[in-house]
């Protein structure tokens, strides 16, 4: 395995990705909405009108939901007023699945560019005539999608910590974020979901002709994460440390199986059919 080849392929894709307006806009707009706009709305609107927040939390459905919270959340919000509890509940727990949507979207948009984009522009043939092995070609492109997806998610996490703590400081009176359940989410589940998105995008790229088709199909994976979001809202599942670790483990196993299948089929004769 020649790592120089793998890095060369990844670096080439990074340059190309930076010049794809569609990819760049996904990289900017998605975090802007999820880590800045929505958190600020959740913090600043109730904080500016405590009465409205009071009223909202007296809603019988929400009160029922609050009373059904698992102990690891109840312990944290115990003794807080409704505004503080609301902020912790929404931004500390309910919001967590959005941090899975981001790496998923980043990874699938870059992978779509790296695999289907290369197919769409018919640039893959000269690449197949290089001395890079099939595995090096595959890993170079996986790395091209994985590294930025993971790094931007980390960066988004850091910005989210600053935004949440900064905007809620006057209400909370202390630095309270991140909560323990976020660590497995960011460092264990998020990379696993990035790899899953890449693997599925590669499989889709073999069947579609264009970057957009590949990206749109793979972005359908977001539905999986939305399931988690709905599950939390419905009180069925909560992203605790344990759930995060277990979810990550399941995803990594699925990733390993998919990657094994893909590596076996990611061969020059198959890739040539992309070029024709």
């Amino acid at each position, binding site marked *: 395995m020649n790592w120089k080849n793998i890095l060369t392929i990844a670096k080439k894709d990074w340059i*190309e990705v930076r010049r794809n307006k569609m990819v760049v806009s996904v990289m900017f707009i998605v975090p802007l909405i999820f880590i800045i706009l929505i958190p600020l709305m959740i913090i600043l609107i109730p904080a500016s009108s405590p009465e409205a927040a009071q009223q909202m939390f007296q809603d019988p459905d929400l009160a029922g939901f609050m009373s059904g919270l698992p102990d690891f959340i109840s312990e944290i919000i115990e003794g807080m007023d409704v505004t503080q509890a609301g902020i912790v509940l929404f931004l500390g727990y309910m919001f967590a699945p959005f941090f899975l949507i981001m790496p998923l979207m980043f990874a699938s948009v870059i992978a779509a560019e790296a695999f289907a984009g290369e197919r769409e*522009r018919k640039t893959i043939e000269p690449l197949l005539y290089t001395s890079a092995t099939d595995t090096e070609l595959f890993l170079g492109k996986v790395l091209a999608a994985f590294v930025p997806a993971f790094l931007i998610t980390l960066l988004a996490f850091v910005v989210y910590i600053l935004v949440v703590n900064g905007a809620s400081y006057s209400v909370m009176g202390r630095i309270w974020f991140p909560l323990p359940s976020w660590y497995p989410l960011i460092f264990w589940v998020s990379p696993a979901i990035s790899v899953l998105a890449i693997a599925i995008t590669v499989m889709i790229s073999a069947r579609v002709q264009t970057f957009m088709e590949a990206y749109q199909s793979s972005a359908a994976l977001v539905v999986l994460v939305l399931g988690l979001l709905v599950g939390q809202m419905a009180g069925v599942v909560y992203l605790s440390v344990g759930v995060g670790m277990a979810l990550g483990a399941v995803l990594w196993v699925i990733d390993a199986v998919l990657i094994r299948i893909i590596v076996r089929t990611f061969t020059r004769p198959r890739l040539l059919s992309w070029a024709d």
Partner: protein
Amino acid sequence: MGNNTMEYAVKVQNLTHTFGTLKAVDDMTFNIRRGEVFGLLGPNGAGKTTTVRLLNGLYAPAQGSIEVLGMNPQSEGNTVRRRTGILTETPANYDRLTARQNLEFFGTLAGMDKTDLNRRIEELLTFFGLEKRADDLVGKYSKGMKQRLALARAFLHRPELIYLDEPTSGLDPESAQQVRELIESLRVQNGHTVFLCTHHLDEAQRLCDRVAILNRGRVLAQGTLEELGRRFLPGLWIEIGLWMPLPTGEEIISRQPGVLQVNVDGRALKVQVNSESQVPAIVRGLVEAGAQIVSVQPVKTSLEDVYFKLQAQERGEA
């Protein structure tokens, strides 16, 4: 095998490759000597691109054997490809990269040392007239510039064997001429072998030491132009130039022994004879009939004549 490896850059024996039920390459056998320019000629779908892919280990042959630079492309494909260069049918450059970035990418993958790579990039950009636009995105290039960049990519890592698929397509006459000169200069450089796929028969005639003519995956004929001419266009053609047209010229020549065919074109008579020995008698006969001869020249066999004769034979027309 040692001697053959020294002598031949490519050895192909009974090569067959199929896509489903279609035989894209059918029992092909040919050898390419080191340092020669070898042309693969044939209509679209004749199997040229598939052959090049097989020679580079991109496909596994269904039958037959291939040896490229003494190696088996199937088991040593990566090493083979490191020592070969290719200009594919379409330039297929990365449009969102600059010319320099395109070359840096392929040079690094070919294992070139950074200092050498940078020097080589400058050299090729200058040679192909791209140095002033080296840092522009390739997407902004004209078709001809893209083709020149793809050629630079093929030559970048100083490959011993270069495959050129339609190298002058999309080039203006000046650039096309420059590329032909480049190919000719490679011929004289020791160890460089050129495998040329082209539709331009005049280009093949000018550049190739030997050619193979393909149709539907099969080699119809191969050899030097002289060999092909002798085999498929027997006899010798001479052209006799007259000062004035001679109405009885055709009749006079046809009476001579060894004359196979006569075509009259105004003041020019084209005569096909068995051998050179018949020429003096023909000239004498014409002079005695009052013809004023200004020139007598042998007509060279053209690759085009051989090519179209073979393709017509293949269609059952001849």
